[in-house]
């Protein structure tokens, strides 16, 4: 529930009351029901007929929407792919920022479990690339566990070069394939920071 300063709340109530007094009671029109508009009836002018209860419902709906958006944003951050340099499994600076953003989401949602899948580009030996993919996934897991996330919540797998997202023999493709992908395998994100009203 939105916390509004008391004085302001009282002012709103007073204004609403004034507004209600000024109007002639209209013909018996159906009371405005809830925030979702009904397509058959003309929508009531919200400012004029929305009382405190209605306003509370509106606020709640806005909050719910903001929460949904925040959860979606958190899921997107948690599942954002990170990329690697050729033949390397070191976490780059750019990846560091992305992993840092995942940490609070995992901290605040202890039930969430993830799988990190390591991938390589198509250069190099197919069999050795299976091991390199594993090393990339393990590197991201270690980054997270070093920052307090329980390792038992993080599964590490490798696809080597077997799941390339593109197949051209060119750096524009290779750089997209050297990656760790993150997948939520259990639990729901429930605790989020809402950033806007």
């Amino acid at each position, binding site marked *: 529930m939105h916390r509004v300063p008391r004085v302001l709340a009282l002012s709103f109530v007073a204004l609403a009351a004034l507004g209600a007094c000024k109007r002639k009671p209209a013909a018996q029109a159906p009371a405005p029901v809830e925030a979702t508009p009904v397509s058959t009836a003309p929508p009531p002018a919200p400012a004029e007929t929305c009382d405190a209860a209605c306003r509370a419902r509106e606020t709640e709906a806005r909050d719910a929407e903001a929460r949904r958006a925040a959860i979606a944003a958190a899921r997107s951050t948690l599942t954002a792919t990170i990329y690697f340099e050729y033949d390397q499994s070191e976490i780059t600076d750019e990846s560091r920022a992305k992993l840092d953003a995942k940490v609070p989401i995992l901290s605040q949602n202890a039930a969430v479990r993830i799988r990190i*899948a390591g991938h390589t580009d198509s250069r*190099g*030996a197919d*069999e*050795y690339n*299976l091991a390199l993919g*594993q090393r990339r996934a393990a590197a991201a897991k270690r980054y997270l566990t070093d920052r307090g996330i329980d390792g038992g919540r993080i599964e590490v797998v490798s*696809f080597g070069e*077997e799941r390339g997202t593109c197949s051209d023999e060119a750096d524009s493709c290779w750089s997209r394939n050297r990656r760790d992908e993150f997948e939520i395998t259990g639990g729901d994100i429930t605790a989020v920071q809402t950033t806007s009203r």
Partner: protein
Amino acid sequence: MIRLPYAVALAAAITIAPHARGVAQNPPQPEAVVLGLRYDPGTKPGVLVLRVAGVNGDSIRAILQRDFDYGDRINVIAADEGGFPDAPTAGRNGNYSLYAKLGAVALVQATPTATGMHVAVHDVAQAKVARVRDFALDGAPNSREWRMSLHAVSDEVEAWITGVRGIAATRVAYVQGVRGGKLYVVDSDGAFPTAAGDDAGAMSPSWHPKGTHLAYALVGSRGCCQIYVYDFAAGSARQISAVGGGLNSTPVFAPDGAVIVYTHGEEAGTDLFATTAFERGPARRITVGRGTDNTSPTFSPDGRRLAFTSGRLGHPEIYISDADGTNPQLLTADKLGDQNYRANPDWSPDGRLIAYQAQQTDGRFQLNTLSLRDRSVKQHTSEGSNEDASWAPDSRHIIFSSTRTGSKQLFVIDTESGRWRQLTRNGGVRLPAWSPPLKR
């Protein structure tokens, strides 16, 4: 073996020695080539396969000729089709001198019988039949089994003539398809590509030493991999790696056929482990990589040592160790002009050489062989990118994948002459494994 009188053999052996190293410019004098006593690199005895009677005669003759040619140890004499002289018989010495003029030191005469074939090999210089044997042919004419029986005939006859058994009665296992690839097995001459099971995502097939099973890794929807053993007779596969817990890949059968060595990794690095191939058993650690990657094992033929790819130096190189992982040593060395990436060793069946792929500065891989006697290295390829070397049982031919024609295909190369041939036609083929001899 075709036996000659001792004195003649001795004289011929003395005569032939100076010719042994050079490439023969003229067909060798029949008297100077000692049939079957010693195989000399650089000299290929001329062999003529006489026309074979019967409705399948042309097929039989073509297969025998192609098998000899693909072995690179015999110079197949292409005979003139018109006015073709008959098979020589006792007393008709005139025909033998005609064949000698064509450059033949041996004639192969195959006659279909009720159960297979009667084969006679004529020693041209001696003007007589030197060896005969009856062979059974399995299955209907031109079937997969029938062709394999015939390949066994070629291999035996090649042993009579050159002293080295041929490799025609073998197959190559491989992965067809880049994503979700499946296992196939094809005859050594490219005939009858046949699916080995139906699993999509198969990698790294490896033959049981008796050719009865294939071990392989299977990439699942949740990543790499589990180890399976495919039974050819049963037509089905069994998982042998423990469910859950980490990556399992690159299985190889030990020479005793009872143990499989494979790669296993859970998080910090990958190491080689051993487990029983056909019963449930614990995994025994071999390499102690301490967080590095160790993969792609290959056994020495006596089963006492392993070679494998290791990243412990910071980049992949070839190492050898005892089969229990002790005494690891670096085998490959930095060379000016390469990329410091060497991988996928395969130990030759005669124990002398290790084939592997080395990345050049342009990113392409080339195939090298390293001699264990003196650590000398020989490069065998230069076109396209060449990977996944696997030795044939003769320790002379190698099957590998190459992009030299555009798409990735399998090729066979003769490491002595450099001659190569394409084995597969569908693109996207990789990770071949040459079988042991499948029929004798």
